[in-house]
């Protein structure tokens, strides 16, 4: 049992790594760009990315993963122990993992309720960044020969 779990985890980690490599290679392809737009959820540089997850959403997603998995672990172990069925424990837990994946992994809208408000580009041009006068003067050599 245990070696099987280690093997599954090993295979998963390697598949994930290969997936990243695959991504890099196909980054130019249009189809892949669309897929990434739907799934990759970096906090957006522009506010127009409707499919992102904001920081609060990411925290919520992480909390949900913990809560749901521990809850399903407790329920499945308890049920399995009381019914005397190892298979029941595994089935309930597998269902729980699947449900948790559905709830927390895709970029659902409720993970984007506190989006960051970036300054609109047209407004930003009117407020140029301050000159860095003091930094320049301190670099000058005090004495000249």
């Amino acid at each position: 049992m245990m070696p099987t779990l280690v093997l599954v985890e090993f295979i998963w980690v390697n598949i994930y790594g290969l997936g990243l490599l695959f991504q890099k290679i196909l980054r130019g392809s249009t189809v892949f760009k669309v897929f990434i737009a739907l799934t990759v959820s970096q906090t957006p540089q522009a506010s127009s990315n409707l499919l992102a997850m904001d920081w609060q959403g990411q925290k919520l997603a992480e909390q949900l993963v913990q809560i749901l998995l521990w809850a399903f672990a407790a329920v499945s172990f308890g049920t399995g122990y009381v019914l005397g069925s190892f298979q029941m424990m595994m089935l309930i837990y597998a269902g729980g993992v699947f449900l948790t994946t559905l709830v927390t992994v895709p970029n659902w809208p409720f993970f984007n309720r506190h989006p960051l408000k970036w300054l609109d580009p047209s407004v930003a041009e009117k407020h140029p960044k301050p000159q860095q006068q003091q930094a320049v003067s301190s670099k000058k050599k005090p004495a000249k020969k």
Partner: protein
Amino acid sequence: MHSFGYRANALLTFAVTILALMCAMASFSDNFNHPSPSSSVQVLNVNWFQKQPNGNDEVSLTLNISADLQSLFTWNTKQVFVFLAAEYETPKNSLNQISLWDGIIASKEHAKFWTHTSNKYRFIDQGSNLRGKEFNLTLHWHVMPKTGKMFADKLVMSGYRLPKEYR
């Protein structure tokens, strides 16, 4: 910063870790089982009893082995391996153990059984010590879990004796 792949990986890794913990707990729960197995063996017949050309005694027995091993099964039991060994002492060896019969019990329902059989494996001594020998028949079992620790134990039945002369 989180990506889809990052979340999926973190979730699955955490899920597998928790699964490992549950399996450890399931194995630990086996310690709360206090089994009460019972067994009896009758030697129905000594089929033949000869000295082989190489000088070793050999005997063939017909046995009736009956046992109730149902209390060994828990929710975490995959199967029970059971074997019957003849045990006796000789001048050369303080303990001789010879497996006469074994079987695999796959479920609790099949754990209460009897079998009427001649010995599955040959009963051959190291030497010529078996005439009139007193021996024990010990039922050994290994409870193989679905996950975790395996438990092994035995039940000693004494008072068996082989004939004084070859047959």
